[in-house]
């Protein structure tokens, strides 16, 4: 009987260790930090080159597009424009199709890396807050 328990225990340990190692190794490349702009800007050096998801609000009127291309440059600020206080502002770069909801004041999450000249957004890395079908949307529509 004890022999059997040792076998089960050993198998379980090996499996657990294998899963743990796998999980840990995949997590390291699979995870990204989710940060607000203020958090990143206060300590820029630390975040350079790290894969980030940056949360903020597009500065109204800051979206520029190079003619006849899909290259965008825009500014993102920490807090929504109507909050009065804008918080830190960062330049962002992106090449590709932007979502319909991407415009001034839109709440966005950008995936990409921070460089010295601003935030370089990955392809398909712009997520503008869904015009949520639920509560959030009604609040926005009502305001």
């Amino acid at each position, binding site marked *: 009987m004890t022999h059997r328990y040792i076998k089960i225990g050993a198998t379980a340990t090996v499996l657990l260790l294998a899963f743990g190692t796998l999980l840990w190794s*995949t*997590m390291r490349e*699979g*995870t*990204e*930090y*989710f*940060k607000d702009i203020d958090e990143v800007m206060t300590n820029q050096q630390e975040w350079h080159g790290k894969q980030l*998801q940056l949360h903020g609000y597009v500065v109204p009127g800051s979206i520029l*597009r190079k003619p*006849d*291309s*899909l290259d965008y440059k825009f500014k993102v600020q920490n807090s929504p424009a109507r909050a009065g206080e804008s918080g830190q502002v960062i330049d962002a770069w992106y090449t*590709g*199709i*932007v979502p*319909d*909801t991407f*415009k001034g004041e839109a709440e966005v999450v950008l*995936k990409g890396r921070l460089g010295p000249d601003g935030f370089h957004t990955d392809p398909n890395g712009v*997520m503008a*807050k*869904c*015009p*949520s*079908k*639920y*509560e*959030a*949307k*009604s*609040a926005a*529509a*009502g305001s």
Partner: protein
Amino acid sequence: MASLGTFLLLATFVVCSYSAVISVVGARRRSRRLIESGIGAFYLVSALMTAASAVIINAFMTGDYSIKYVEHYSDSVQPLFYRITSYWGGLDGSIMFWVFLLSVFGSIAVWVNRERYRELIPYVVATISSVQMFFLYLMVAHKNPFATYLTAVPADGQGLNPLLQNVYMAIHPPSLYIGFVGMTIPFAFGIAALMTGNLDDSWLRAVRRWTMFSWLFLSFGLILGMIWAYEELGWGGYWAWDPVENAALLPWFTATAFLHSVMVQERRSMLRVWNVVLVITTFFLTIFGTFMTRSGVVQSVHAFGDDPMLAKLFTGFMVIILTFSFGLVIWRLPLLKARNELDSWVSREAAFLVNNWVLLFAALFVLFATMFPTLSEAVTGNRLTVAGPFFNKWMVPIGFILLFLTGVGPLLAWRKSTITNLRDSFLFPVGAAVVTAGTLAALGVRVWSSGLCFAMSAMVIGTIVQEFWRGGNVRRKNTGTDIITAIIGLVGRNKRRYGGYIVHLGIVLIFLGFAGNGFKKDEQVLLKPGQQATVGSYTIRNDGLKVNDDGQKQMTTAYLSVFQKGKLIDTLYPAKWAYRKHEQEPTTEVAIRRSFAEDLYIVLAFQPADLATQTATLQIVVNPLVDWIWFGFGIMALGTGIALLPERAYSFALASLPGEAGATAGTLALLLALTIAGGARLSAQAGMGPADQNIQSSYYPRTDFEKQMQHELVCTCGTCGHATIAECRKDPCSVSHEMRADLAALIDQGKTHDEIIQAFIAKHGSQEMLGAPLNQGFNRLAWLFPYLMGAGGAVAVGIAAVKWTRRSGDAPADPIHTDLALDERIDDELRDLD
């Protein structure tokens, strides 16, 4: 009206509490009267909830905007159909809809089982009532859908988001809710079995069908969500591992596990604790999923807003469920002892066990990864997120293991497989896999992960074919019929087993669709007028942009020509629509050219500045094999349907058909199938008569040509579920009226078929009004598919019924044994399953 609704909810809460308490008291005192009273109150709950639902639907239909919920989710221009579906469009209403469904399902389950499981019923009633009480409390205390504006009643509502004004979105939530809510029934029976100590296998029989039924709807809800994401959201994919999607997937894993492990308990009386745990876990995960998406615990692009109060209530409820249920399990552990042990790892039950572990692991992994951002923030203070690639890295291998087991499991014998039967049964499937793998390698398809997926799919299909073939042959020899009849008879005798194989076949097709994803091509291009871009084998040319307005929305449409090998094969019209009141949230009208091999999927990304230069910014996606996912679900539904068909349906067919009436019955079945397939059309035509005047009778076709054209064009009003303009006459539908008027005018101008179609496309800015896109035969086939499946099923049942009736009398009494081992194995299984 609102106060009536609130009153009804309060009354329901009171009745519900009464039913819960009195049932337990009745069961403990063994008082028949008290138990009956509890059941009566339980039925009353569903009546009250039906009344409350009628009140809110009435409020939506009449536009009672003094009710906040109605004001939030509907407006006066919204079509009637979507005003009704707004019932479950928001949080408060969806909770109410939940209770409504639960009360109705509960009543049905109690009604059906009230005699056979007399001892369990009071506790089933008490459990379901308690769950209902929680949700009713949520509504009464916190989220009353009947809450009204005390002052300043708005004149009109805010309207449902245009993205949700879509047929898929109208039926996706109810389907998912049916799946979720249905899982409460097995849970209630499980708790009742634990409470009473009636832990033999009888409670499983009561819940098996419910689980299968709920599982089917859960799957259907998931698939509908995928189709909606694919066709409406326009990002080129269908699954993004979003928390809301994951929430629905979690109980699906555990329910699938339960459907498999329940067979082990039936056959071998093993895994008894495990099955109870799975039932509890599945129910818990449905509640947890609801909690996750509605309380703001996880960040998701489309979760409901933050609601700490709701989060607290849900947390409390979940803690109670877990403590109570697992407390009961531990208390009853002595009664749940397995009567058998695992004899060998090379056996059917071992395969089921591994399948269960993998499914459970999948559920735990998805749960972990979904909650990871929240967990990491709680633990480290840094919000770390995990994205799609991380999920894929884990779920792809998990999917492979499951696919592998799907192929291997059915080949293993119960208890212990011998070397001989391993060799016999594995030869063909493994051969199929090896041949496929070899062919693919020769063609240069990459091994990981698509190549592997194809090879394993070949193995599973090999297994299924072999099972049908061998079983059919044995039956053929035993009954002396032809192979087709034998196979149909086999399915009839073992609906669950062979229905299950058909489900497996559907799963394989779905996996093929997933594998196709590995060959996806996705490009973003900017095309000036006349410019071309090539993606995959397609060359797309921009012929210009156009803007139209139909009063309800502004439509910007790109005109694109698609070339393949230098030949014009199609014209596509991707568009952006901006609805009134929702100008900031334009909807994407994706243009999809479907085929079995691959979809060409084009999204127009539109910036107002592009219009002046006529530049089309396009996302062009080539999605190989994606339609197989939807087909696969069709097959899965067919298989589940076969497994679900009640025994009585068969005996009825057998009893009511005279032996020689084969031909007549066949014709009847065919007619029946045709009626099902053509139902919409037939009834719509029958409803047309010269008696109805005004709009409904507008523009009756004067010529055959006009009639044909009216049947080719689809009404764009959005309420009629894409009926043709010949059919959309039920409501006073001004849209179809206008379209018929346009058509009549065009015909009067002497335009040809193609000119009229082009004129309509130009006017409406998309192909939306084309009933069956003209030069895309496949599209038509895709639409017909569900009907074909339904018709095929009906015909199969009909033929089977006839055949059995004819052969049942003269089946040889002494079966011929040629392959003894196999015969024994099959008979062994025939006896026990279903």
